[in-house]
């Protein structure tokens, strides 16, 4: 009997190496032995067919992506329905809940959530993005299924009861958890198991956001950090599958009725630049406030973790009596803001009210996401700027809704610091590509302001507060990779030609005083290939009777790998095996030697950079 868990290249099952269900069939009865020959043949044939039909891991991975998408889509549908039912059940079906309910429900629900989180689901704290990243980078993609259940229950209760949090990030984590479970059960290899969680994350986010492209880009931008064809295919498949499921059950109608937009006057772009500046500073305020309040609340003594969500709920509830818009995810109010429902000063009140409410909710330890609050703040800010513009310049043509839409992307770029996702999110939500220019201008400005005044993105800040050193995708994006041109040095003279005879080469080198025996000299071939040779080797060729032979003839077929100045140094390090240095040649002319690169050059370059 084989070991059930000895999958080559795979991970041991979480249950351990023992196979609890393994069984050995006892020796057959004598009458069975007569039939066993034919039976064995049948089984052998079936086994052969099965082996032929069995999926390779790559194909399985893609098939699994679709399955993950379907599971995640179903989970997100149930999650959204659960949030809605919770809200209707606890706060009533009206847009503005009755004051007594608003006063009592978030506080009591906060207490229940706290107990659930502390006693049963300790891993569900936070938004879900960093938790998914930590699963990928720390636990090889392992997310306990208990976390999925906990996230579902606690977030539905927290968001449904009016905590100022969103369902997207939890959906992302639930998708990752489902993917992780399937990956474990299918005993995927370590690499695939690690990659499967982001696939699920994309599926969860896509279903929650009804925006597959933005979800795919977010996961690549913030969770994985790299574009790899294999992963991309799986992520896209999962995201599309989940969105199909979500639309199947919940309809394909977008969250917002986006206004028709066309840029009539290019001067209007100035207003969007103003929105970008405002968005950048509001993002800063949001990040700084969250970064400041959260560790302080969490470090409160006693049983603070029990009563903090309740206290946050109470404060939000009291605020919600006057501005119920800041409670919950707030998508309906974003829609209203897009259609000029609120005046600009009320919109600004909503901006700051939502920032405070979200900071309290999130810092209290109530689980929930920050996507929806960021969108809410962005939409309100955008609508306020748009409304202000219409007051100052009555002839302005841009609808307030367009500003609100751009504002959403602006906060995504400035607060969450995901510039690509921010652009695609707005385009996908609006379905209007003529808005791309304002979006790019506004988002770029907000992103640069946030980058200038805040060292790390909010996700990095939060993970560091947790004591986790997760890789910063932003640092990876923004950090400058060391290139060959930064490390290379001028070539060692003279450069030999492959047509030189061994005798001429020795003469050439010996006439130069600086030529040392241990030096490695490059030999240029007419084809643009390069080889290397040392003086002792040349003397040996001469001693062996090849003094009159051309270098091309004595050096054999082995050639040096070539580098180009723009290539990353880590590529050079991979190529640099047995050779002391490699030639760096021009991309335009492979015969033109621009420098050479040795391992010591690379180390020196790294030292210089770190200094």
């Amino acid at each position: 009997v084989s070991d059930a868990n000895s999958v080559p290249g795979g991970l041991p099952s979480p249950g351990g190496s023992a196979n609890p269900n393994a069984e050995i069939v006892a020796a057959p009865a004598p009458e069975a032995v007569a039939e066993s020959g034919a039976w064995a043949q049948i089984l052998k044939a079936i086994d052969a067919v099965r082996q032929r039909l069995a999926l390779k891991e790559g194909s399985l991975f893609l098939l699994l992506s679709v399955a993950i998408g379907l599971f995640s889509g179903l989970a997100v549908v149930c999650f959204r329905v659960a949030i809605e039912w919770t809200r209707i059940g606890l706060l009533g079906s009206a847009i503005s809940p009755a004051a007594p309910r608003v006063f009592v429900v978030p506080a009591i629900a906060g207490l229940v959530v706290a107990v659930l989180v502390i006693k049963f689901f300790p891993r569900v704290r936070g938004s879900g993005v960093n938790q998914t990243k930590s699963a990928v980078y720390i636990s090889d993609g392992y997310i306990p299924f208990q976390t999925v259940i906990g996230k579902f229950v606690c977030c539905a209760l927290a968001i449904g009861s009016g905590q100022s949090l969103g369902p997207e990030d939890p959906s992302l984590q639930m998708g990752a958890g489902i993917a992780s479970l399937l990956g474990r059960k299918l005993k995927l290899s370590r690499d695939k198991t690690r990659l499967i969680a982001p696939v699920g994350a994309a599926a969860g986010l896509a279903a929650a956001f009804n925006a597959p492209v933005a979800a795919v880009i977010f996961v690549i931008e913030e969770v994985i950090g790299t574009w790899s064809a294999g992963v991309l295919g799986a992520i896209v498949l999962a995201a599309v599958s989940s969105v199909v499921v979500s639309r199947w059950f919940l309809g394909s109608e977008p969250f917002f009725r986006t206004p028709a937009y066309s840029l009539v006057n290019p001067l209007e772009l100035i207003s969007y630049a103003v929105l970008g500046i405002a968005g950048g500073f509001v993002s800063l305020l949001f990040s700084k406030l969250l970064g400041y309040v959260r560790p302080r609340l969490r470090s409160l003594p006693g049983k603070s973790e029990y009563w903090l969500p309740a206290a946050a709920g109470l404060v939000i509830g009291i605020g919600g009596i006057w501005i119920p818009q800041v409670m919950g995810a707030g998508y309906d109010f974003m829609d209203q803001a897009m259609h000029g429902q609120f005046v600009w000063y009320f919109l600004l009140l909503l901006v700051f009210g939502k920032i405070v409410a979200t900071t309290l909710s999130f810092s209290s330890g109530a689980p929930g996401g920050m996507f929806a609050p960021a969108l809410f703040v962005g939409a309100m800010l955008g609508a306020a700027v748009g409304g202000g513009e219409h007051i100052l310049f009555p002839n302005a043509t841009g609808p307030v809704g367009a500003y609100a839409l751009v504002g959403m992307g602006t906060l995504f770029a400035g607060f969450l610091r995901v510039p690509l996702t921010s652009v695609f999110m707005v385009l996908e939500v609006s379905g209007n590509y003529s808005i791309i220019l304002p979006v790019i201008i506004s988002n770029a400005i907000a992103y640069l302001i946030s980058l200038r005044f805040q060292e790390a993105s909010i996700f990095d800040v939060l993970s560091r507060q947790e004591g986790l050193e997760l890789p910063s995708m932003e640092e990876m994006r923004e950090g400058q990779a060391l290139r060959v041109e930064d490390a290379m040095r001028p070539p060692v003279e003279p450069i030999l030609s492959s047509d030189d005879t061994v005798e001429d080469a020795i003469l050439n080198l010996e006439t130069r005083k600086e030529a040392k025996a241990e030096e490695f000299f490059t030999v240029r071939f007419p084809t643009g290939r390069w080889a290397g040779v040392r003086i002792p080797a040349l003397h040996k060729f001469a001693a062996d009777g090849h003094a009159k032979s051309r270098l091309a003839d004595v050096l054999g077929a082995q050639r040096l790998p070539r580098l180009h100045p723009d290539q990353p140094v880590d590529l050079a390090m991979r190529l640099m095996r047995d050779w002391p240095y490699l030639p760096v040649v021009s991309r335009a002319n492979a015969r033109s030697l621009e420098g050479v690169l040795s391992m010591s050059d690379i180390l020196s370059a790294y030292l210089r950079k770190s200094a």
Partner: protein
Amino acid sequence: MFSGPPSNLCGLAKGLHASVAIATTNLPESNHTINWNLSREAVLLLSALVLVILFVFTGLMARFYHQTERSLARQWSINGDAATQRGDLKEAVDDYRTALIYSRSNGETSSANDVYELHLAEALADSGHVEEARSYFLSLAEKQPGAAPVNLELARLAARQNNVSDAARYYNAAIFGVWEGDPASQRRAARIEFAKFLLQHGQPTEAQAQLIALASALPAASRADAPLHVQAGQLLLEAGVQSQAFSEFRRALLLDRNSLDALRGAGMAAYSLSDYRDAANYLERASRQSQLGAGEKQFLETSRAVVAHDPFAAGLSTIEQARRTAEDFSIALNKAQACATSLGATASQNLQQAIASAQGQKPQASETYLRQHADMVPAIMELAFSLEDAAMQCGPLTGDDLALQLLGRSRAGAPQ
């Protein structure tokens, strides 16, 4: 190829996450270990099974959720209707908005969703949130380009903003669009509204086209249809199409001979058409039913005067014709002389010449002379008309003088 451990279908049934092997090593003629290796396949099969179960569960849950949503949407829409009836538009907007929240994501009830959206948009428009209302209407129009009520609301919003071209476009779309329930009357109402809008915005020619089209499609089956003809007639009168207006009033009177509005309208239309006999007739009938307004009274008196002073009326005896002519001449001359006296030296040459000419014709304008020379009646009357026209220098004419002037103009075919 998966290279996991061997397993069998028993294993699949017992514990699907673990691989199970079946060994046939005890069989003497076959030492073959069957490598079922069903662990992954088993998990996939189980996943498919769970997926199906979840699909069913989610489907049921989603259905129940949508039913709850529909019911909430209906309830909030009813609340909105009640608030609208109370005139509490703010609450109506909130209620319809809530209805829409519960209805919007529900694909099965797109028609109900459109109704809520329409109600919300109407409430928004009525409460002054024009832009948001327009956004909803445009969204509805995008979904149902031929929906007449939506186009009518868009037309009203454009009309409210004095956007004539957009209003005309949407009104036309409403008139030729799809109406649910009594499309003819809905179209008629839309056309009337459009015509009124055009008249208000100084576009009588376009209004005339709409009104003529309206009049041609009006039913004339029963007395109940009379008000429609009256309304059409009134608008036609406003648009300056008096003859069409008169015929509409007459059609109304054919359906309801005692229709006060039709009598009044017909009287006014006849007056505009210089048909003073009919004008007097209709206005008199109207005055017998109800007290006339000041303007209508004035028209009635003037019409009566015109009829009374008209020597060209059919069926008059020569004696009566001569009497009227002589009387008209005398009235006109007196008026002209009084005017000239009041003006003194500033009297126009035209007035003075007319008086001089009349003085010269005075013998021929006597009743006795005219009885014997009936052929002189037109010439004398022309003189009387020119005297009245010249007397206009002293201001607008009234009473018999106005009647004579109108009579003169109607003889000349001039507009009134």
